[in-house]
C-alpha cells in the first residue's frame, strides 16, 4: 500500500451540522470588534471546502464527539454540546489538532477577521512587509569579547 493513495473523506449532512455547531463553540462571534463566529456562512463554507488532508481526522473527531455526547452532537441542546466539546478538547491529540487546523485556517484568513486583528487582507507577495531599522551597535559587547571558536 502507498500512503499517497489515502482517499479524501466527504462529510454527511449530519456531520456538517455537528462541525458547524462545534466551530461556533470554538470561535464565537465578538460583537465588540465585529468579528464573526466560525460558523458564519462564508467562513463555514470555506472550512468545508478546505478540509483536504484533515478530512478523515475531522470525521473521526466528530464520531468521537457523538460518542462523548451520547447522540448526534449537532442535534443536541447548547449546554450538552458545550460539555461534550470540552471533553473532546481536554482529550487533545491528532483529532483535535485536525479540527483546530480546519477551523483556524479558514477563520483567520477571512477579510473581516484579518481587518479586526489589524492585518491587511492580502497575500504576502508581491507587496511584502517592512521591518524596523537595524541597530548593529548591539553587537559591540559581542565584538569586545573576541573569538570563541575552537582551534582544531
Amino acid at each position, binding site marked *: 500500500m502507498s500512503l499517497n*493513495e489515502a482517499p479524501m473523506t466527504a462529510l454527511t449532512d449530519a456531520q456538517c451540522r455537528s462541525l458547524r455547531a462545534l466551530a461556533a463553540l470554538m470561535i464565537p462571534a465578538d460583537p465588540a470588534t465585529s468579528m464573526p463566529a466560525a460558523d458564519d456562512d462564508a467562513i463555514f463554507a470555506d472550512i468545508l471546502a478546505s478540509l483536504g488532508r484533515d478530512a478523515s481526522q475531522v470525521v473521526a473527531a466528530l464520531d468521537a464527539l457523538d460518542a462523548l455526547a451520547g447522540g448526534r452532537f449537532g442535534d443536541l441542546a447548547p449546554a450538552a454540546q458545550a460539555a461534550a466539546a470540552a471533553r473532546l*478538547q481536554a482529550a487533545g491529540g491528532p483529532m483535535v489538532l485536525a479540527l483546530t487546523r480546519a477551523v*483556524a485556517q479558514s*477563520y483567520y*484568513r477571512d477579510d473581516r477577521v484579518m481587518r479586526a486583528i489589524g492585518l491587511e487582507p492580502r497575500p*504576502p507577495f508581491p507587496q511584502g512587509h517592512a521591518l*524596523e531599522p537595524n541597530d548593529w551597535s*548591539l*553587537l559591540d559587547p559581542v565584538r569586545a569579547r573576541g573569538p570563541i*571558536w575552537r582551534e582544531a
Partner: protein
Amino acid sequence: MVDTVDVLIIGAGAAGGAIAWSLADTRMRIVCLEQGDWMKPSDYPSNGRDWEARQLAEFHYNPNRRARDTDYPINEDDTPIKIANFNGVGGGTILYAGHYPRFHPSDFRVRSLDGVADDWPIDYVTLAPFYAENDRMTGVSGLAGDPAYPPKEPVMPPLPLGRSGTTLATGLNRMGWHWWPSDSAIASTEYEGRAGCINLGHCTGGCAQGAKASSDITYWPAAIRAGVELRTRCRVREITVNAEGMASGVVYYDADGVERFQAAEVVILACNGIGTPRILLNSVSGRFPNGLANSSGQVGRNLMFHPYAQIYGYFDAPQDGHRGPGNCIWSQEFYETDQSRGFVRGYTFEFTRGQGPVQAAITGMMTGRIPWGAGHHAAYRKLFGHRTGMVAICEDLPEEHNTVTLDPVLTDGNGIPAPKVTYRLSENSRRMLDHAVARGTEVLRAAGAHDVGHEAPLAVGGWHLMGTARMGTDPERSVVNEWGRSHDVKNLFVVDGSVFVTSAGVNPTCTIQALALYVADSMKRRLATLFE
C-alpha cells in the same frame, strides 16, 4: 543501441545541482534524473491569501502529509522525530529556511578532540575554498567577523534584525552570550539576477520573490546553460552493475510510469540521507546481495538528525510576527564541548521571528493559551504578534542502531519499497536538549518574556538527514572514501548528507553543497585515473 551518458546524477537537490554545475566544465555528457517537477514561483503559497493553509498541505515539509504523487512515503512509526524533505528540482532547498552556517574546524575532529564518534577524513581547511565558491554561487547574506568562526566573507549584508532580533539580542547581551547575524541563503539585496528579500514572511513554503537560494534558481540554471540535461518525473528504482562489478546505469520510471534504463559511465547519488540508502539497498544483485556499495554493512546505518528544541516566549511589546524572513540571528555560546554541562559537543541557537495569524491560533489553542469559547478573542489579541523565540539545533552523534531500511510492505506509486526509519534519541542528545531548553528559557526571560514554552525534541524537526553512507578511509567502517567514491564500486559516488561522518550542531546544506563541489573537483583532478 544503448545511449550511454558519461555522468548520471540521481537527484536534483542541493548537492545534485552543485556537482552538475561543477562537472559541466569537463564537457562530459551529464544527465540528472529527478523524481519531482520544476517549481513555479507563482505556485508558492505566499502568492495567495491561503498561504498558511497551503504550507500545511501540498507544501508541508513532511512527505506523508504532503503526499504529492512526486513524493515517496516513509515509514516513520519507529522514530520520535518525523521526516522533512521535498522532492523536485531544488530538493529540500525549496522548503528550507535558508539557514546557511558552515561547519567549524572542530566539527571535523570530534574523535581527536572529544573522544566520540570518528574524525572526518577531510578538514575545514580542505573545504574552505569550496565553502567560499558555494557562498558566491548561492548568494549568502551575513556579516563578517563572527567570533564563533574563522574569518569568512558573506557576499551580501545581513538580513534585518527587526523587532524580534532586537528583543532577542538585548536579552543575549544581558546574559553576556555570543550572538551574530545568521549566515543565510537569502539575498538581502539584488544578487546575480535575483531580487532581494521583501520580508514576505516565513520562507518555508518556497520563496515567490526568488530571494531564497533554492538550487533550482542558483546552480541549476547555470548547469543547464553549460550543457547538463535534467529530466524531471524520473524516479530511479535501482542502480545496475556489470560483470566487472562496476555501475552500468540505472533503472527508472518515467512520467508515464514506464520502466526505462539509462546507461552511464559514472553514477552519482544525491538523494539525501534517506533516499540514497534506499536506492543502494534496493540495488541488489548476485555480486552485491546486501545492497550496492554495502560490503561494510554501513549503508543505512548511523542515521543522524539534528534533534531540535523549540523555545518561545510571549512579550508585552509587539514583535515581528510573520513579517520578515524567519532567519535572524544565532548564538553559538554553547557550541563547543564543555564536559561540565553533562554532554559532549554542543548546539546552535537559531532565533526566529513569529507566526502568521493561522499558526498563532493553532498553537495558542493547542497549548491552552487561547481557549475555545468566550475568551477566545481576548486571548488571541494578547498573543498574536507578541511571540518570538528560537530553536536549538543539537549535534547528533552516529549510532549504528539508527537506521534506514526498506519497508517490507509500504511502497511508492511505482511499487518501489519505501524507506523505514528506526531512530532512538541518545542520552547525550537528551541532555543537550534539556540544557538548551533551560538556557533558552533564561535568555527569553532576560529579554522580557512573560510566558515561555518549549517542545523538545521537536517532533516535526527531521529536516536534516545524515550519515547513512558515511565517508572514511577504512572500507570496513565506511561506504565512500575521502572524496566521495564508493569503496566497493569505483564509478559510483555519493555527494549528499549521507556521507557525513558527524552532524555538527548546524544546518547541513552549506556543507553538503561545499562537499559536492569538493567531490567534483576531486573527480576532475583524477579524470584519467578515476576508477583506479
